[in-house]
């Protein structure tokens, strides 16, 4: 109890000194695919003095394995440990039935504190080098360099851009009593590492979301005792209170062009969807209904919003063009007791959402519905799944669920075949928001 109380005082002074207390997340793979691609990742050699904090080979191995499509060969089974192309013999790897090989070495850059990472990537079956370059950075950037190499490998093999250098936002709460809880907004690498506290409060924090360029975030904070929308620049920490309307101010979501925030306001009676221009502050009302309208999500072209409404009695998902009559609403879901938190995948056809099938089946799960064929695929099998957030390459969905009674973040591949979990060492973790591409 005493420890919990002391934490917020430390956090007040910023992220640097709060390092030891933040929620450290680390990946656990909970479900993989049947025939992963065999890849050999040779431990990168360190050709400098001292010990490096991070092993590049381990970072790439973890990245590629947790998205499920790859299986890395254990170094103890390797017949050789090449560091560069001239030491590579393809038959050493073809006899081990490997399809791909990654080798590299790490050196101190001449005359500087910077570190150079050279990597080379080979196709064993075709016996060709697919890629190779030298990446230079500080010791603190070794994880970034590792993730960047994972991006290259992933894209060369799968044809899909890698999302290993992306980040996530999430909210952590620590419950002491109904009168005393602590809330933190944190940012971490997509794999939960290098967490940083962006905001700490004794009052709830909700609904974090990224600006499209990844430089700013928006969220709801109850720090004034009332839910209000704020934006915050990640680099400078500078904050701006965006709304101060009566009643609920919630669900801020950036438009694809970054100039507006969709949001939910109940200033006119019941919660409705609004769009506020971030430059002129002009506010446009989108929905006008006495029921609850909430959870706005932009279409990719920024011309329409998907939202949830309980206007038929239970939550269902609807879509509306910006500027259309408030009567001109298209209902997207019909076949569920409760369908909520809808958002389209980049293809604009597949709708990710939270689904409760029937009143009798009380489980909330992450599903995808094709709005043209109406085919529904439920990706998760746990009971309390919510807040789905899609990786920028559309390959995975991160969501919040419960494990052993605590809030944790899980991720599932878009086809449901691969799952991994980011357990937290502290508090209840929820509301993940996957960043756009950051480089």
């Amino acid at each position, binding site marked *: 109890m005493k420890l919990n109380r002391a934490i917020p005082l430390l956090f007040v002074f910023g992220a640097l000194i709060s390092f030891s207390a933040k929620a450290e997340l680390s990946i656990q793979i909970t479900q993989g695919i049947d025939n992963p691609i065999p890849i050999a990742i040779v431990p990168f050699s360190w050709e400098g003095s001292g010990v490096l904090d991070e092993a590049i080979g381990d970072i790439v191995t973890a990245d590629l394995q947790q998205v499920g499509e790859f299986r890395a060969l254990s170094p103890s089974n390797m017949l050789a440990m090449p560091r560069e192309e001239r030491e590579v013999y393809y038959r050493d790897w073809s006899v081990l039935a490997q399809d791909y090989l990654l080798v590299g070495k790490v050196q101190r850059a001449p005359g500087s504190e910077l570190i150079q990472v050279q990597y080379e990537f080979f196709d064993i079956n075709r016996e060709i080098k697919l890629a190779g370059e030298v990446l230079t950075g500080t010791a603190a950037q070794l994880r970034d360099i590792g993730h960047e190499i994972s991006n290259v490998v992933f894209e060369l093999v799968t044809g899909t851009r890698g999302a290993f250098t992306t980040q996530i936002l999430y909210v952590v*709460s620590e*419950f002491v009593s*109904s009168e005393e809880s602590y809330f933190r907004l944190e940012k971490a690498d997509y794999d939960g590492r290098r967490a940083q506290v962006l905001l700490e409060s004794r009052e709830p924090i909700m609904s974090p979301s990224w600006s499209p360029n990844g430089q700013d975030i928006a969220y709801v904070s*109850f720090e004034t005792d009332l*839910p209000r929308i704020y934006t915050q620049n990640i680099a400078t920490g500078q904050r701006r209170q965006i709304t101060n309307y009566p009643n609920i101010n919630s669900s801020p979501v950036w438009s694809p062009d970054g100039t507006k925030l969709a949001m939910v306001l109940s200033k006119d009676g019941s919660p409705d969807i609004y769009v506020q221009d971030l430059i002129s502050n002009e506010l446009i009302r989108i929905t006008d209904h006495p029921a609850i309208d*909430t959870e706005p999500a932009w279409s990719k072209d920024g011309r329409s919003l998907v939202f949830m409404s309980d206007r038929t009695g239970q939550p269902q998902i609807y879509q509306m063009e910006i500027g259309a009559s408030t009567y001109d609403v298209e209902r997207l879901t019909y076949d569920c007791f409760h369908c909520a*938190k809808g958002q389209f995948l980049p293809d604009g056809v597949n709708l990710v959402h939270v689904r409760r099938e029937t009143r009798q089946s009380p489980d909330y799960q992450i599903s995808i519905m094709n709005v043209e064929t109406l085919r529904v695929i439920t990706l998760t099998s746990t009971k309390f799944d919510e807040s789905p957030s899609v990786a920028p390459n559309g390959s995975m969905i991160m969501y919040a669920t419960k494990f052993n009674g605590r809030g944790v973040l899980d991720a599932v591949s878009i086809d449901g075949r691969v799952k991994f979990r980011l357990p937290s060492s502290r508090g209840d973790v929820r509301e993940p928001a996957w960043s756009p591409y950051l480089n």
Partner: protein
Amino acid sequence: MVHTKQFMRSAVVALALMSLAACKSSSDAESDANASSAMGSMSSESTSSAAQASGAGTSGRLSAEQIQAENALRQTVFYFDFDIAEFRATDRETLMYHARDLAANPSKRLRLEGHADERGTREYNLALGERRANSILNYLIVNGASRSQIEVVSYGEERPAMTGQSENAYNRNRRVEVVAR
């Protein structure tokens, strides 16, 4: 225990008054006698210790009413059924006392804090908490409170009274709390 006795007693008085009114046209001596003994403090032999504790004489009925009001005002948490935004019918009388108290004390300020259990999405629960608080807000205003006396805020599922995924926790978390300001 004293409060329970007082509550019982005032109910008897109310019933007696109703029966008195019903019998008014008949000048039946028996019903008059029943009525006066039911008035309690009016007749010395039926005066209970509870009535003495609350003050004797003609103010007895008022005093019971006051104590009932005080008890009602002491109830500051109102629970809701699953997926229901209307307060329970059993809370109507208690909320009536809250409304009268606000009407009688224009300088009093309240905050209605609406909450939901954790099932369903967070944003929807935020809206449900507000809907619940508004159901009480509207009742208080209809019964004499002024809108300017009451602030409404919803915490959705963010501030549970009890953690966990039990039915008991859910029941305790679907609530509106009345907080004096």
